[in-house]
């Protein structure tokens, strides 16, 4: 079993708005090992992106703040680092890919410069070694003809290519942890498959641990080793991917999997989960999923279920599970 690169313990993140405190992440715990891809899946608004931003300590200010818990990266609790040290960590130890490739790159600088900036910042290389490093990052992301690409501007590239450049920036200093926040959502379906294959390739070459945030189960099944299912700020089930699909234990997980449309079963009505996710300012008492849960019991409406470890790798928070 390889080492654990990231350990998140009881993370709490809130946004302080004019209308009150919004507990976007309310007690989330998970871990990710070296060379492993951990998926965080859930509906829009469940807090998965905020989790990623919290780990990077890049919450929007004013308003967003981590209010509790630990984030231990390679043995160090990075929530305790001062700003300067955290900056040193960003890009070098942990990096992030954002969702929209059309917006992520600075339109007025060439892409070579944008990658080089990262290299110069975190690696102590003599100037003539910088460009080869940039080119190697581009190659890692399988960008063709990297030597000529470095002088191009973002608008000259297609969406899929831009996303690879973003990936190159992220991987240019070979971080230990990569957080990918819905990187395929804005890409065409045909490009998605290629891009996902890239991740596997990168992981094989660099042993990086990846957190893959998405709402798309198909992507999860393709690339993730383990999955955490998030709902209304909490992780309700964590398990290896195969087990999640074959034997989900949490009602929300099974409902999610059921709602993925399937081509092999004909004449079926599309399944969707009744109701809406709760307002993050007015959370229900007890289990947060209980208002929409088809198998909820009385105790579900009164008390939040504890986390139960079924096996080393599989945990659930549900009163139905003993």
């Amino acid at each position, binding site marked *: 079993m390889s080492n654990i690169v990231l350990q998140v313990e009881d993370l709490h993140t809130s946004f302080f708005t004019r209308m009150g405190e919004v507990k976007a992440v309310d007690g989330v715990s998970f871990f990710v090992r070296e060379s492993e891809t951990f998926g965080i899946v859930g509906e829009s608004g469940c807090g998965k992106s905020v989790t990623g931003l919290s780990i990077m300590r*890049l919450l929007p200010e004013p308003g967003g703040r981590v209010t509790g818990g630990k984030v231990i990266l390679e043995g160090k609790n990075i929530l305790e680092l001062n700003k300067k040290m955290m900056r040193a960590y960003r890009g070098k130890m942990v990096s992030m890919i954002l969702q929209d490739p059309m*917006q992520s790159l*600075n339109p*007025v600088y060439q892409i070579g410069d944008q990658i080089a900036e990262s290299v110069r910042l975190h690696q102590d290389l003599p100037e003539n070694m910088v460009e080869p490093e940039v080119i190697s990052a581009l190659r890692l992301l399988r960008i063709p003809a990297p030597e000529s690409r470095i002088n191009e501007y973002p608008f000259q590239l297609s969406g899929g290519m831009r996303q690879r450049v973003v990936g190159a920036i992220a991987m240019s200093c070979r971080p230990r942890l990569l957080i990918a926040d819905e990187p395929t959502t804005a890409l065409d379906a045909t490009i998605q498959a290629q891009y996902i294959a890239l991740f596997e390739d990168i992981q094989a070459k660099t042993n990086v641990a990846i957190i893959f945030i998405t709402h798309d189960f198909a992507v999860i099944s393709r690339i993730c080793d383990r999955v955490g299912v998030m709902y209304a700020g909490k992780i309700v089930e964590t398990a290896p991917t195969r087990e999640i699909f074959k034997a989900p234990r949490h009602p929300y997980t099974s409902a999610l999997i059921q709602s993925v449309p399937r081509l092999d079963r004909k004449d079926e009505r599309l399944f969707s989960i009744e109701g809406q996710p709760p307002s993050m300012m007015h959370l229900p008492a007890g289990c947060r999923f209980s208002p929409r849960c088809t198998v909820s019991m009385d105790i579900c409406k009164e008390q939040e279920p504890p986390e139960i470890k079924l096996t080393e790798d599989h945990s659930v928070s549900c009163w139905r599970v003993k």
Partner: protein
Amino acid sequence: MTRFIIIRFLQSIVAFFGIMVLVFFLVRASGDPTVFLRSTTSTPEQVDLLRHKLGIDKGIGTQFWIYLKDYAKLDFGQSYSQQRTVAQEIKDSLPNTLKLGIPSFVIGMILAILLGVWSATKRDSWIDNGVKFIAVLGQALPGFWVAIMAVFIFSVHWRLLPAQGNNSIACYVLPVGTMVFFMLPGMMRLVRSSMLDVLDSEYVKLARIKGLSETKVIWKHALRNAMISPLTTAGMLFAGIVGGAVITENIFNWPGMGRLAVTATMARDFPVVQTIALLVAIMVLGINLFVDIAYAWVDPQIRYQKS
């Protein structure tokens, strides 16, 4: 890119010609300059002679043709109210205006950028609130009034700074301050809001993800994009500066083109006003052209598409 410049340049020439025509007819719209220049005892023959001397007894078409010819020769004519040529009047006053205008512009821009960026990055701090306050006050209070109050306080009451003359550095303080006051609120607000938009963008987030220091994020990544928007209003900014210059020169009796324009207007001195108008028009078109080119240079997308 060169094709772009050439087209824009040609458009400017057409526009300038249009403005020349406009100014010509505007200036002669209804006024009869002899009204000011003749005394109550002039005989009709003397008035006619005056008319002939000023060249306004010819038909409009002829006048226009003479106008074009003269201007092409850079002969701007004789001032109606002074015994000098228009060219001389302008040669004397233009440097003074520049002496006032250029420092004011530079100081104004630097302050606007500094304060605008500072206010955008430290939201809700005392700087931000101060900037917002100045912006509101600066856009509401009339510039001439503030200048007069400044004169009253600093010059009359406290006797700190002179209100007239242009021979010492101290003489520059109040006029330059007034000019800056005209420019600052609008520009500052623009920089601030543009900066706020840019700071929200994904690529700024990415810059932070890379681990860049906040200073680099703001001044290298954010600002360059944020300045694109205020740049395009540089043309309008110039219009404001002209207005401010006219008023400032008037208040402080600064012997520049602004004061000249007003005194010439009072005296119905057509040639002077006309020439100043055209000079300013050239500057306006020049600035517009410059802005278009600069915009293309700064934003690579435009540059590549036009080539």
